[in-house]
């Protein structure tokens, strides 16, 4: 994800976060919009760039939410790196593979958050297994839908460009 696209995605995630908390507050407990930005950014398969984007998105979420500042920053840094690295090592192309990868990445993020809270926060409230499972499912579904939509949009744009080029070539003959 290019820098401007990443910043735009961060702005959309922030607007969604504020709006969702006003319209339907429980949704935020099940869907982390900043994690979705990190996972979509990792589709570029560039570990260094993905981990940096993960750190920025995580620190942004930490600034808006409670808890220790840096918890989501560390977790999303590792998730961004791991997701990009896995995509480099394995062929992850279809929607099913992508959704599985994103579910595992969400599980990794939740595990890291639980570990950090357990180590650093007195009487921390650890998310239940049901919440983690629900988050994995919802995040993978939303990310997969966005991935498929992005893929179709890119294909439509390239088809449109090809058609335009063909028409211009025919007109000049």
């Amino acid at each position, binding site marked *: 994800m290019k820098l401007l696209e990443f910043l735009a995605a961060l702005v959309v995630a922030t607007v969604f976060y504020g709006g*969702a908390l*006003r319209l339907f507050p429980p949704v*935020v407990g099940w869907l982390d919009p900043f994690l979705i930005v990190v996972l979509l950014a990792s589709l570029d398969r560039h570990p260094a760039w993905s981990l940096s984007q993960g750190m920025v998105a995580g620190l942004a979420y930490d600034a808006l939410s409670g*808890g220790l500042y840096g918890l989501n920053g560390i977790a999303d*840094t590792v998730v961004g790196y791991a997701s990009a690295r896995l995509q480099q090592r394995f062929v992850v192309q279809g929607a099913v593979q992508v959704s599985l990868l994103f579910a595992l990445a969400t599980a990794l993020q939740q595990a890291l958050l639980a570990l950090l809270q357990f180590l650093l926060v007195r009487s921390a409230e650890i998310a239940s297994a049901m919440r983690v499972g629900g988050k994995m499912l919802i995040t993978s579904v939303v990310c997969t839908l966005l991935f498929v939509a992005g893929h179709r949009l890119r294909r439509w744009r390239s088809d449109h460009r090809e058609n335009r080029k063909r028409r211009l070539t025919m007109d000049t003959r």
Partner: protein
Amino acid sequence: MNDRWTHALLLVLILGQMILLSSRPGASGSHLERFFFSLLTPISHGGSSVAELLTTISGAFDSNRVLRADNQSLREDLARMEEEVLRLRGLEEELERLSQLSGYSRPEGGSLYAADVVFIDRSSPLRTLVIYSGYARPQRNQPVLAADQGGGLVGRVITATGHYAKVQLITDRALSVGAMIERTRRKGLVQGFDESTLILDHIPLQEDVEPGDLVATAGNDGVFPRGLPIGRVARVTPGTDGLFHRIVVKPANDLARLDRVYVLTRQILPLNVRETLNREAP
């Protein structure tokens, strides 16, 4: 960028954030947190405002009935508050007279200013409230009270930048509030448990506690002044340690329905005293 540099970058960033986690923030949070907070809260405020507008538009279709019900409820609230104000004025005058007679000098009362709730996240373990005040700039550690629903304690400001502030809710497990049972004046500690429950700890088993007892701030924690309502005792059971009660307290306010809050500007401990105590703390 090759693998070695990527691994080095990962290590540096994680170590940097661990240092950030373990560092003690300044008066209003770390610089990085305040930078992100000042950048992102106006954007999320925009999202929250759009959502509120959508709610208002959808409610406009039912506006007549809703407005009448709101009007009636506001009239009742106003009548009740006028009574309460008269009663409190009488108590204030009596307290003033007694203070003069006994030579007791009361601490300054401080002042309140209103703030709007931008958003409240009480469903995730990271319970937060973000407020916006056009009247004043919130400061760290200022107590926050509900503007309606009886004016109970909501939390305290933990990060402030400009007119925005992040508030740690009383239901957050990381916040402990010095509290007392109003009826018996027995002091204990209130801590958050989940999104709508608090636990009052350190009340010995031999103390008399009953469901319905009012729990208020004790004024002994250096942050919250005495007498702010926290909630009411919901359930009393013997604790597992055999020494103290396990008292479940229901908060005075429904934190999901807060639209406006008050921020109290009173300085509980003078700044130089707090700094000395912080330096001496192990």
